[in-house]
């Protein structure tokens, strides 16, 4: 029943990893020489994560995953 909760954990972990490698760590001043081409994907991750939090709330309210997906109009695909 809680498949979506597992999915949200995966999204969350992905987001946490990207946040760390892209925004934290030792910085070479003036020598950071590449840019990350698909940075937008990080923001897609944020939206999915927030959507998953709402999904968790609905699951807690006793709705089945199928009902939640129908209401949200989402799929499990990332």
């Amino acid at each position: 029943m809680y498949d979506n909760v597992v999915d949200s954990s995966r999204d969350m972990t992905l987001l946490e990893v990207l946040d760390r490698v892209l925004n934290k760590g030792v910085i070479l001043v003036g020598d950071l020489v590449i840019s990350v081409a698909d940075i937008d994907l990080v923001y897609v991750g944020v939206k999915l994560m927030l959507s998953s939090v709402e999904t968790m709330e609905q699951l807690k309210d006793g709705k089945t995953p199928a009902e939640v997906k129908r209401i949200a109009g989402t799929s499990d695909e990332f």
Partner: protein
Amino acid sequence: MNFNKPPMEKLIYAILLNKSETDNLQQVLSGMAGIDKTALNPISFGQISAVYGNFSKSDFAANQAVAIAFAGVIDEVAKHYTLLPMRFGSFMKTSDDIAKMLEQNHDGFLQNLEKVENKFEFGLKVFGDSTKIQEHLKATTPVEEKPLSENEGSKFKIYVNKKLQAHRLEERLLTFADTIVAEITQYLKQMEATSKIRKMASEYILVDGVFLIKKNQQQQLVDAIGALQKQYPEIKFVLTGPWPPYNFVEVKLK
């Protein structure tokens, strides 16, 4: 035919504490692989070493999959050594440049490495829908409404009164977030952990924190957050880790 190969530059993964001989580090790294199964190489100065891989910067694909692979390499090396992760995309032209950078920043790196030695980073996000929490707070402890007299019942006064109530609810939400932060801080104090905590990071994230704890305190932290989750079932505590100390690097490179 063009025999000119693009120059190979050095992608640095991490700076690590290496109290043993460089040869041992070389041996450990030879059992691991970098991004795209490339070799990992060490360069050392004093008690610190940099781990890097050779890549052509022009051919380097800086995308999400590679960023995750980069994090994977750091995780793997962190199983064996205390390290400071480099930010993704940190290239230097030559190994001599890396050696020079290590030499110039040796003390700063060493100081930071000793600070994070035998420690793990954990992340904690506390999720909740602020609107729902406000509704809950309003229902459980209603905000006092000052009754309006006939003269005061103008549209303006009603508007001001509503705004005032909204402001009071906002204050209660902040107080609620403060309570959660205080509870977390109390546990962290017992563990003598270093922490960075942000309150109301967004409408959904009531608390966004990172902690640096001793490796043997991992279960204690998990238990503490588990206890908080039981105490506050209306919000969601998500703990991630253990991570290398990404959020506890404070080096100003020379």
